[in-house]
């Protein structure tokens, strides 16, 4: 029975426990879940909600205010802002989720190895990561994306890489606390090779803190990617990405066409807000110390 010597019974029960875990969420975290689910539906099934093609321009309807035909109005290219805001949810998730996954995939193994091996390797890895964190992430992201080429893929890779120290640090701190624990020594005595100790013994016991951070770090990735787009880095203008739309709309604010920037701005605020609420809720559940201190 792969890969564990156990019976099938256990996983439905585990899933049931997880669902029950959701009900332990605080009201604010539950609100976060609702917001994320709404945006998730919008992102996955944008086509069902959009009233127009997000990148078709109607040259005769440039900069029209909200109306029955264009609920959120039209932008400087005569594109339907409502449809563009909805389509933009794809970019929000499409950047944040892979960026966090990359950050986890780099950060957690580095944290495990650095914490377990210690010594010079630990020093070198942690100093590199400290170096990354010395610069404000937006400056570094700006520089790296500008240097590596302006593409969506580069934005995702850079954000994931820049955020990996967060996860590395969290896991490393837990590994330091556990590496001389009895069960690790008993695993060594049993003859476990290092990789088994890292992934079967240390990983499951050190990952909670890092997992609790994922939603908050996704909020960070959404914010930074929108900021980059606002600055014109990575994602370019007609793409229906919220940051890029806000940039375009910013010019029109002074002349009174508020709807161009306001609607993508509201969408951005809600998504970041929802992810942060969810992140706080997850942290409360996974980290009892934090909950107790409240």
């Amino acid at each position, binding site marked *: 029975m792969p890969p564990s010597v156990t019976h099938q019974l256990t996983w439905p029960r585990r899933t049931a426990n997880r669902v029950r875990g959701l009900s332990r969420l605080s009201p604010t975290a539950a609100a976060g879940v609702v917001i994320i689910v709404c945006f998730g539906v919008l992102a996955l099934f944008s086509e069902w909600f959009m009233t127009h093609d997000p990148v078709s321009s109607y040259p005769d309807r440039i900069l029209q205010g909200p109306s029955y035909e264009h609920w959120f109005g039209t932008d400087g290219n005569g594109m339907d802002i409502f449809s563009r805001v909805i389509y933009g949810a794809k970019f929000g998730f499409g950047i944040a989720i892979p960026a966090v996954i990359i950050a986890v995939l780099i950060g957690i193994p580095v944290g495990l190895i650095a914490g377990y091996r210690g010594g010079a390797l630990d020093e070198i890895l942690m100093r590199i990561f400290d170096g990354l964190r010395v610069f404000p992430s937006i400056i570094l992201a700006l520089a790296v994306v500008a240097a590596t080429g302006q593409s969506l893929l580069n934005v995702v890779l850079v954000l994931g890489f820049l955020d990996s120290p967060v996860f590395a640090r969290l896991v490393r701190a837990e590994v330091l606390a556990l590496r001389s624990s009895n*069960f690790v020594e008993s695993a060594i005595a049993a003859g476990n090779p290092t990789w088994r100790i890292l992934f079967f013994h240390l990983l499951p016991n050190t990952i909670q803190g890092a997992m609790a951070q994922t939603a908050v770090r996704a909020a960070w990735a959404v914010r930074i990617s929108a900021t980059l787009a606002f600055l014109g880095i990575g994602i370019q203008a007609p793409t229906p990405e919220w940051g890029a739309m806000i940039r375009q709309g910013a010019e029109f604010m002074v002349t009174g066409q508020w709807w161009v920037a306001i609607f993508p701005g509201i969408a951005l605020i809600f998504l970041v807000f929802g992810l942060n609420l969810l992140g706080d809720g997850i942290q409360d559940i996974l980290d009892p110390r934090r909950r107790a201190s409240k």
Partner: protein
Amino acid sequence: MRQPILRAKNLVKRFSVGRSSSYVNAVNGVDLTIHRGEILGMVGESGSGKSTIGRTLLRLTDPTEGLIEFDGRDITSLSAKELRPLRKDMQMVFQDPWSALNPRMKIGDLIAEPLRIHLKLSEPDLRDRTELLAKKVRLSTEFLNRTPSALSGGQLQRVCIARAIATNPKLIILDEPTSSLDLSVRAGILELLMELREETQAGFLFISHDLGTIKLISDTIAVLYLGRIVELVPKEALFNEPAHPYSQSLLSAHLPADLDAPIQRLILEGEIPSPIDLPSGCSFHTRCPAAVDVCKTATPQPELIAQNHHVSCLRLKDGGNILSRQQA
């Protein structure tokens, strides 16, 4: 004589204290041999270096000096990687079963782990062997799907023992395996260990501070004081005629089975000295009722006083045997 499985010569382990130049002298020149099918009991106070010896013999910590020979092979300076295949044949059971098992692994996986590492078994075979092992340590197979938090201390220690015997090792070191368990549970574990000794013909090192447990289970007993073996002796000889003053005081503190038997208490004064500043000469001289001036300067060497009975005491020949002297 039975085949020796582990031999240690002049084993020394010092831990540095912070950044200063002082050391904790945990183990100070230990010679011992464990044979297959034999249970060597090691008894001593807290701080006498019992656990450190156990962990050093299995190279879980590196010895400062000395030689460790396992199954005829010098393992003193093997790397962690070179040791790994040998760990199939040398296993350990730890004192505190609650913390010795990964809390996020299932009992079945914990028991199967040594098999999975050392033997190439198919999944069905692995499962059969795991269930067999659970039965052997009298653990219900229902527990195989549970995590350690669902089991009691005695059950967890059975899991640890199942892990230790999974690969049929030639040597098992047990570091106070029963001292954290209730008396009733303790008896069951000891019984199991004695059964396993007969079945597996492995060599056992049983570390304990409890003379009663040691008496029950060991064939040979090593009495430890401040990281030195002061007396290495067959069990009967120790309980009938302990030769070293420290062994005598240990025994006199131990309640005999026959409560009416006359016992002569030999109560030691003071605490065991700090292993950072070892006493000069015989390290027991600060508390020894038989100590004379020479004990403060000369270090006693193990002497053979009867078959398989080694004692390290300078006053053996001139009446240092205080119990019999007082009785006379």
